[in-house]
C-alpha cells in the first residue's frame, strides 16, 4: 500500500507500508539536508500556508524551513491575532483561505478534531500540525525516524512513553504508530495523567518509573504543561520530578544502550534532568529536531505528488 491520501490528518488511518514510505522519503531528505543539496524545485510554485491557532515557535519554524527548502512559497498566519478574535468561525476562516487557492495548509488547533473538520471544507491538502489532545502525526513520524536511525529498526523494540499522557497528542500518535509497527509500548505516568480506557490500546501501563523503564530500548519523555503542575493533577513540581523525572538512577533500569527522546520544549528539572538531556551518548533530542524538518519535507512532497496525481486522474490541468 502506497501513501495516496490527500491529507495527513493522523497516524490512525495509515497502513504500516505507508508509514515506511513516509519514513524512507524522509530518510532521503535527511541525507540531502546534511549535504546541503535539498532540491528547491519539488514544491516550486506551490503555496503553503501555516495556520497556527495555538502558539508554537518550534513546529511552525520546522514546517516553514521544510517548505522553503523544497521551494514552496510559505506564509505564516498568526491565527490568534486575526479574524478568529473577531468571531469568525473555523469553517469560514477555512473557506476564506480556500478561496485564495493555497496548495498546502498546515494547521494546528487547540480542539481535538478541528483539523479534520477544516479538511472537509477545503480543496487543498491539509497537514495536521497538532489538534487538541488528538493527533500530531509529523511528531510521531519524526520520532519513528529518529528511533529507526538510532536502533537500525522500527519493530520489536520495547519503548516507554512517560509523563502527561492524558493531555498529549504526541503520545496518542506515537502509540498508534509504534503499535502498528509491532513494538512493545509501555506507558508510565501518575494515574491522574493517564487517559481512561488506555489498557484497551494494547499497551502496558505503569505508575512506577523504575518498573516501567526496565530493559526498554527507548525512553520517550513528554512535556508537562505548567498549568497542570500545581495541585490539579500532581501535588507539586518537585514531587513530580522525584517520582517521574528522568534522572540517571531511573534511566539505569533501561537497557544500557537505551536512547532518550523528548518532543520539546523541555522543562529541565521537571520531567528530565538536564545532564541526561545533554548526554550525547543517550539523548537524541537534537536529532529529533533535525528529523522533524526531513519528515515534514517528505510529508509535503508526498501530499503534493498525490494532489498532482489526483488532478491528472480527473483530467484537470495542474
Amino acid at each position, binding site marked *: 500500500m502506497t501513501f495516496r491520501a490527500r491529507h495527513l490528518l493522523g497516524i490512525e488511518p495509515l497502513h504500516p507500508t505507508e508509514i515506511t514510505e513516509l519514513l524512507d522519503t524522509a530518510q532521503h531528505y535527511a541525507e540531502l539536508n546534511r549535504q546541503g543539496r535539498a532540491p528547491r524545485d519539488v514544491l516550486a510554485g506551490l503555496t503553503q500556508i501555516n495556520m497556527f491557532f495555538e502558539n508554537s515557535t518550534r513546529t511552525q519554524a520546522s514546517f516553514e524551513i521544510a517548505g522553503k527548502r523544497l521551494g514552496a512559497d510559505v506564509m505564516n498566519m498568526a491565527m490568534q491575532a486575526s479574524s478568529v478574535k473577531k468571531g469568525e468561525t473555523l469553517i469560514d476562516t477555512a473557506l476564506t483561505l480556500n478561496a485564495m487557492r493555497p496548495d498546502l495548509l498546515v494547521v494546528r488547533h487547540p480542539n*481535538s478534531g478541528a483539523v479534520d473538520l477544516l479538511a472537509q471544507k477545503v480543496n487543498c491538502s491539509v497537514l495536521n500540525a497538532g*489538534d487538541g489532545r488528538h493527533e500530531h502525526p509529523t511528531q510521531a513520524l519524526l520520532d519513528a525516524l529518529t528511533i529507526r536511525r538510532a536502533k537500525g529498526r522500527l519493530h520489536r523494540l520495547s519503548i516507554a512513553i512517560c509523563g502527561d499522557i492524558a493531555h498529549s497528542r504526541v503520545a496518542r500518535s506515537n502509540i498508534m504508530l509504534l503499535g502498528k509497527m509491532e513494538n512493545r509500548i509501555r506507558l508510565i505516568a501518575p494515574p491522574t495523567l493517564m487517559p481512561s480506557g488506555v489498557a484497551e490500546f494494547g499497551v502496558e501501563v505503569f505508575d512506577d518509573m523504575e518498573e516501567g523503564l526496565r530493559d526498554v530500548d527507548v525512553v520517550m519523555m513528554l512535556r508537562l504543561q505548567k498549568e497542570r503542575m500545581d495541585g490539579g493533577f500532581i501535588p507539586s513540581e518537585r514531587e513530580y520530578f522525584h517520582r517521574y523525572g528522568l534522572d540517571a538512577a531511573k534511566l539505569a533500569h533501561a537497557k544500557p544502550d537505551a536512547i532518550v527522546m523528548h518532543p520539546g520544549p523541555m522543562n529541565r528539572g521537571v520531567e528530565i534532568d538536564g545532564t541526561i538531556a545533554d548526554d550525547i551518548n543517550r539523548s537524541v533530542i537534537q536529532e529529533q529536531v533535525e528529523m522533524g524538518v526531513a519528515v515534514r519535507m517528505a510529508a509535503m512532497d508526498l501530499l503534493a505528488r498525490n494532489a498532482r496525481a489526483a488532478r491528472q486522474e480527473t483530467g484537470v490541468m495542474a
Partner: protein
Amino acid sequence: MSILFTNARLIDPERGETRGALLVEDGRIKAVIEGGELPEAAEVIDCRGHCLAPGIVDLGVKVSEPGERHKESFASAGRAAAAGGVTTIVTRPDTLPAIDTPETLEFVVRRAREDSPVRVLPMAALTKGREGREMTEIGFLRDAGAVAFTDCDRVVTDTKVFSRALTYARSLDALVMAHVQEPGLSNGAVVTSGKFASLRGLPGVSPMAERMALDRDIALLEMTRARYHADQITTARALPALERAKNNGLDISAGVSVHHLTLNELDVADYRSFFKLKPPLRAEEDRMAVGEALSSGLIDILCSMHTPQDEESKRLPFEEAASGAVGLETLLPASMRLVHGGVIDLPGLFRALSLNPSKRLGLETGRLSKGAPADLVWFDPDAPFVLDRATLRSKSRNTPFDGARLEGKVLGTWVAGRSVTETR
C-alpha cells in the same frame, strides 16, 4: 362528530394488543370494539391492519420560544410533533429568558394555543433564571399551568437550595424534574470517558457522575418526600440506586431519551457534532442495560429530549459545538428499533411513550380505553425508509438519524378527535 377507526391493531398500553375498531365521539373514545357489529359514524377510517395507539406525550421538548425562534417555534414544533405522532409536548423552560415567572409562562401558553396543532403543556424553572439560587414562584406557576418544575440541564448544586425547593414543591404536590449529572465531574466533558474518548482526545466524564447525582437526589427525597423525576438515566451503574429508591417507596420516576437507547458513544465517529448530547452517548453495555430497564419498567418514560440547534452552533469543532438533537419526528420510528430488536413489545413501548408520562403528570391521555381523550396515532410499524433530514418539519434539523434506515411510519395523528395530520 364521530369517527370510526376500523381494521386496526389496537395498541393498548394497559391491556395489550388486540384487533378491532375504535369509535371516537366528541373528542373522546366512545367505545373499543373487538368484534360483532360496527356502529355508524360520520367518518370511517380504515386502518388497513396497521397500528392505532394513544398519542405520544413527549416530556422535555425544547421549543425555542421565547428567544431563539429561528431555531424552533410553537408552529414548527407543533407540525413536527403532529408528523411524529406526538399529541402532547411538555416544554422545557430553558429558553431565553427562562420560563421562571407566571408572566413568561402565560406567554408560552398563549403562543402555544395560537400556533400549535398539538397539545402543549409547559414546565417552569425550579429556580430563578435557572441559576440554582432562589426558588421560583412554584405556586403561582402551577396555577398558571406549569405541569412540572425543572432547571433542565443545569444541576442545582447548592444542596440547601435544592432541598428547600423540593420541600416547598412537595407542599404543592408539584413534580420536580432534575438532570442527574455531578457537575464537579462533568464540567468541560463532551463524551463519556473510556477508550473512545481517549482515542479521539476528547475530555470525557465518568459514567459514575450520573450515579453520584442520583444518589444525592435520592437522599434528598428521603428527607423531603418530594415528587421527583430524573430526566435521563443512561448508565447501568445508576440503575440499582433507582430500583432501591422505588422499592423504598419514594415518589421517583425516571426517563431516558431515544438517542441513548438506539445510539452509543462510537456513533460520534469522526467528531460528528450531531451526536453531541447531554448527557453524552454511552458505552454499548450501558445502552443495553438501559434498554432492559425500560422494558422492565424500572425506567418509566421514553422521550425525545428534542433540542433544536441551528447549523452554525453545530458546525464547530466538537468541543465547542452545541449539545442536543431534534427528535419529535423521529421518536416513534427510532423507538421502533427497540421493538424490531426484541427489547420491548408495542404495548410496553406505548406505556413508556404515552401512558407513563400521562400518569406522572396527572393527565387523562395516554390510554386507549373508553372515556379517554381521542389523542391517537395511526402508524405502520414495519414501513421502511431512509431518513432525509431535509424533510423534517422542525426549523432545526440537527438529527443524528440523517441517512439512517428506520422502520415505522406515522400515517395519521389526531388530537381530541381532530386530525392534525399534514397533507403534503
